[in-house]
């Protein structure tokens, strides 16, 4: 037996105006789960504690709760001292019990055709991974789109895809999915990162449904425009000024000895919109011994097409980009756009290694910048944190130059074609980010994605800066204090 203390969210609508945390100290067995802690509290300390459970073995999806803010199944998550147990983010009925029924009832069901027959093996194999869902609704509870728009949620889309694949179903699932919010998903990946069954809903359902929608002519007009632009120019944004490529040579030599050589995949946004961020990043790389090769025939990575289900020209983009770097025998390709990075890593099969700038700089270590007397908060780009599992590296860099105040990691609303296709939703999510930023009391917002930089800037009065820019400011301050002239 061991003793531990946990805090549990308590709320009785008959008595309480809002939820509060109650602390309990319990004795539990070695290896006990969160559910066992709840049982001990209910059985020996407070029989009024309400929580839902059934199978206690991860198979029924009754007991999803948040532990330290993260949704988990109470029956599978090991109990630890000091944890906080709260309901998942759905309407709370009492204590840890949330109202699952409205969401469950809205999930589509199969409507059999007459004389339905067993599908063939390849169809079964395609459907199977989508059927592991235990409808715990952890995904719905973290979905940013559900919070601000009419979207039935990730698992409802998983089910639409499962039905769309099944020849026994008579429904028009693509039209239904579009009506139920298919294009409101920002592909932030929050849903499947909390899924106890690890069902990759954005890639395996949302993007697939969007591809079906494309074939049915249901792609949003703004998304069609982006696809047309890529077809014409190879870039997903129109030219508005001098590009990054026009200001820089094909090879950038570092100031000091070469620690590493990388090819640089710029991405449309850094090449044509957030150009200064990219220039700042080059300066930081030069100061840190990174030799950068910048082949200029590279084109859009295809992410705006893949996320919106417009796959027709994606393969040719992939081929051209891969050829661009492999023909130069480049073995490591650097990305600084979170969206391009996640696409190259997850949607491409590359003969070279793909590395994000935060990974690269922390891997080789950086020259210490001067500390700036600034309080900053960091916005995790979805396609960096969840798409590439890069969470700690940006923080490691930021803490070397400014004070960091954390805020919850939530999508800013710009991804998945939502900023162009559903601007109201994107604005609503952006405003939520603005509020979180305000709560931190930070003077600047740092991030590491051009879409996030661009979008968040419209929803906060604080400056939004790229990590590279802040590092460069640290170097400039260092140079100024030393009295040495700035390197150009």
């Amino acid at each position, binding site marked *: 037996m061991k003793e531990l203390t946990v805090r549990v969210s308590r709320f009785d609508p008959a008595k309480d105006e809002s939820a509060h945390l109650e602390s309990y100290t319990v004795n539990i067995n070695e290896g006990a789960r969160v559910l066992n802690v709840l049982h001990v509290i209910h059985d020996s300390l407070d029989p*009024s504690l309400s929580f839902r459970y059934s199978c206690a*073995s*991860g*198979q029924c999806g009754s007991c999803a709760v948040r532990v330290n803010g993260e949704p988990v199944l109470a029956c599978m998550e090991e109990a630890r001292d000091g944890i906080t147990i709260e309901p998942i983010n759905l309407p709370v009925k009492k204590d840890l019990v949330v109202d699952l*029924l409205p969401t469950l009832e809205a999930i589509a069901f*199969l409507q059999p055709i007459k004389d339905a027959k*067993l599908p063939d093996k390849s169809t*079964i194999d395609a459907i199977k991974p989508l059927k592991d869902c235990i409808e715990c609704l952890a995904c719905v509870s973290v979905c940013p789109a559900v919070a601000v728009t009419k979207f039935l949620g990730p698992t409802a889309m998983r089910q639409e895809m499962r039905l769309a694949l099944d020849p*026994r179903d008579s429904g028009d699932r693509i039209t239904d999915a579009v009506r139920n919010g298919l294009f409101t998903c920002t592909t932030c990946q929050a849903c499947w990162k909390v899924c106890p069954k690890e069902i990759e809903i954005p890639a395996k359902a949302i993007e697939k449904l969007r591809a079906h929608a494309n074939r049915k002519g249901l792609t949003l007009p703004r998304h069609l425009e982006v696809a047309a632009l890529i077809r014409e120019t190879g870039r997903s944004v129109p030219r508005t000024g001098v590009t990054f490529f026009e200001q820089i040579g094909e090879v950038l030599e570092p100031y000091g000895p070469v620690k590493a050589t990388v090819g640089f995949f710029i991405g449309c946004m850094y090449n044509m919109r957030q150009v200064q961020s990219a220039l700042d990043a080059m300066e930081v790389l030069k100061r840190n011994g990174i030799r950068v090769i910048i082949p200029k025939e590279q084109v859009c990575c295809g992410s705006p097409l893949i996320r919106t289900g417009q796959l027709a020209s994606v393969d040719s983009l992939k081929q051209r980009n891969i050829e661009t770097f492999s023909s130069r025998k480049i073995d490591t390709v650097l990305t600084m756009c979170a969206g391009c990075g996640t696409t190259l890593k997850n949607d491409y099969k590359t003969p070279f290694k793909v590395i994000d700038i935060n990974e690269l700089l922390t891997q080789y270590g950086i020259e210490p910048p001067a500390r700036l007397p600034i309080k900053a908060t960091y916005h995790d780009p979805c396609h960096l944190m969840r798409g590439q599992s890069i969470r700690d590296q940006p923080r490691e860099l930021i803490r070397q130059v400014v004070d960091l105040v954390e805020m919850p990691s939530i999508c800013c609303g710009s991804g998945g074609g939502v900023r162009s296709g559903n601007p109201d939703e994107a604005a609503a999510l952006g405003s939520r980010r603005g509020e979180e930023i305000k709560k931190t009391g930070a003077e600047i917002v740092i991030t590491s994605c051009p879409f996030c930089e661009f979008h968040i800037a419209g929803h906060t009065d604080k400056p939004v800066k790229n990590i590279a820019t802040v590092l460069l400011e640290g170097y400039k301050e260092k140079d100024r204090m030393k009295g040495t002239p700035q390197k150009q």
Partner: protein
Amino acid sequence: MLADDVVDCHVLVIGSGGAGVRAAIEASQHGETVLVSKTIVGKGGCTTMAEGGYNAVMREADSCGIHIEDTLKGGAYLNDPELVRILAHEAPLRMGDLVKWGAVFDVTDTDEIAQRPFGGQRFPRTCYAGDRTGHEMMTTLVERLDGTKVSLMQEYTVIDLLMDGEAVCGAMALDEKGRFVLLMADSTILATGGGTKVYDISTNSSSGTGDGYAIGYRAGAELIDMEMIQFHPTGAVFPYDARGRLVTEAVRGEGGVLRNSMGERFMQNYDPERLELSTRDVVARAIATEILNGRGTKNGGVYLDVTHLPREQIESRLPVMLEQFLKFGVDIRIHPMEVAPTAHHIMGGLRISTECQTTLPGLFACGEVAGGVHGANRLGGNALADTQVFGRRAGLAAGMTGKREKAVDLMQIEQQQDRLDAFLSGSETPAKVRVQLQQAMWKGAGIFRTAAELRDTLRMVTNLSKANIRAASPQNLAECCILQNMCLTASLICRSALIREESRGAHVRKDVQQKHDAQTSPFGHTFLSQSREGIERREADA
């Protein structure tokens, strides 16, 4: 006012597992149907946890005759042969329903439903969806249910049946806040599942508390073979709080081997022909014997090993097992599992006709709460088939029953309300009583039994059932009712186990010497009701 709410319908289905949902789907074609469930439909019950599979004759090379023989032999010839015949013949038809409704069972390279070998069967007859077969069935059934007009009352706990004289005319229930609700129906179907939660170590979900046995018994129904408790050979042993969690028979079906702490493949000593794929009663006793004789692991189990199988096979056929054990720190691709027997299934239950009619007019029963299908030991894979075959039959028969005038006897409602009021002024913590009950049952009514231990256990259970348990608030009332159901179910198990003075299938009486085997046994079903109890004698021997 009679109650906080009154519902009137043609068919009332109590329970939302595989049998209850199947029954409701069928009944809804014949009139207004209400399904009441103490959990969210699709999440409660044990069907959704069922892992291994569904037995059905699907191939030319197999036959219903062999399925019947296997089931009767596995059941130690205590099964009701007519129910077995129906099970074997209708299991493929009900599988056809599931397929038509969208079930995603695994298929072979030639696009036929795949089947794996399970214990005690001479043909690989067990259809499956990985090791989440029951979950696949439940999602399919709930989707079909969504397509019917069945009204769902979710998270309502039925506490007793409503009587109109000798006939059942509905049920009394509590909602999640403890409010009293009357449900009136022309026909009522009990599909409440099993009750091995009365044991300290059990595979069951939170709903496996024996409510249906207790509710049926209190209403006057007759139950048979309640001593027949299946101890599944392979339950988890670590961590302590996960003890009893099911480790599917599919692990052995896929080729898993059992070894004791000396590394011996001990099944060679118990059933050299069928080895690990012997019937569950035999394997459970073998494991229990190895552990009792000091050849167990330090966590009190034996090893179940699949490390010799290809990783891909483990990952695709046993994904739930892999995931669960990984969560508890064991990678079954590299290390053996540790397992020990766990209370799994109650073969006994309400006596039913082939149309699932119980001994009470107006009351039907299907699924685990009904007795007779599985005899003295159930074959793995026959329970899921049972839920569908008899769920449909119960729904059909109940639905076809005519409408009738229902006169609710007000006395029973007053009595019920007095019972509930008493809980609110009770003094003992239900959890303490529950733990004592579960430990007493595990110790005294487990795998190996004697009359003396059973009598002691029955005495303890009877005392516990009289405990002055306390509901801290109206929302805790259901918990008290359920605990009393557990106590009553436990007492039915002990009483039946005392009545059956022989070893048969899952029921082993160490204190009884016998010359007969299962086939020559002079005994038939044990039976219990409020008005009589005893054991049937076979006509040939009478």
